[in-house]
């Protein structure tokens, strides 16, 4: 299947909506995976068509290979969002069950700390956080997109 930049753009928007629906249905792990995927799609939309770069699912490498026509403040927002996604997302999420992700968050200290109130479900909180970061990437990409 041939995928052009405009296809990645639309897929990024659709994946983000799907992530929202999954989160609202308490499907936390899949919601997180799909939210990260929406950001990945958007970064792929900004990779030059003649580029032979294949970053697989490494968001940092994808960001480096993509060319976003942004000013410094928007670039900072984009990089902050991608950094936030990279903390919470990797491509292996799609293979992980909920208990595995919960134990992973605990192991890396993300079951506590700022944003996690006493008694809160850390997975639910991190899921919403990842979605918000992905929303920034998709929003900036959609605003700067030029066919």
């Amino acid at each position, binding site marked *: 299947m041939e995928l052009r930049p405009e296809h990645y753009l*639309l897929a990024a*928007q*659709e994946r*983000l*909506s799907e992530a*929202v*629906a999954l*989160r*609202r249905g308490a499907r936390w792990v899949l919601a997180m995976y799909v939210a990260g995927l929406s950001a990945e799609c958007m970064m792929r939309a900004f990779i030059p068509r003649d580029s032979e770069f294949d970053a697989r699912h490494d968001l940092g490498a994808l960001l480096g290979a993509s060319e976003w026509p*942004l*000013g410094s*403040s*928007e670039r900072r927002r984009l990089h902050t969002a991608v950094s936030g996604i990279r903390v919470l997302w990797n491509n292996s999420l799609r293979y992980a069950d909920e208990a595995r992700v919960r134990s992973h968050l605990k192991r890396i200290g993300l079951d506590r700390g700022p944003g996690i109130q006493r008694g809160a479900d850390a997975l639910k909180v991190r899921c*919403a*956080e990842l*979605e*918000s970061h992905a*929303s*920034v990437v*998709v*929003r*900036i990409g*959609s*605003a*700067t997109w030029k066919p």
Partner: protein
Amino acid sequence: METVKSKMTRALSRFVAGPADRLTLEDVAPNKVSGMLVSSHFDGKSLSERQDLIWDELDKVLDPYERTRVVIVFADTPEEHKLYKDTA
């Protein structure tokens, strides 16, 4: 029969109250709808909380299939929207 776009307009218009608030919906070929909701209702809300506000309303008027016709509804505050417009 009422279209998805029309139902979305009906559901989301409640967020358009302030002078800089607005709702824009566009058709996405072949049969989907994409939107931009600029609203001061979103001040102080996280991006996921804004999506919850939007989908709480859309879920009331769209059936399960119609919900899949919504590509995205972006949710900006008026101040954010101005920044994005300056970026474009």
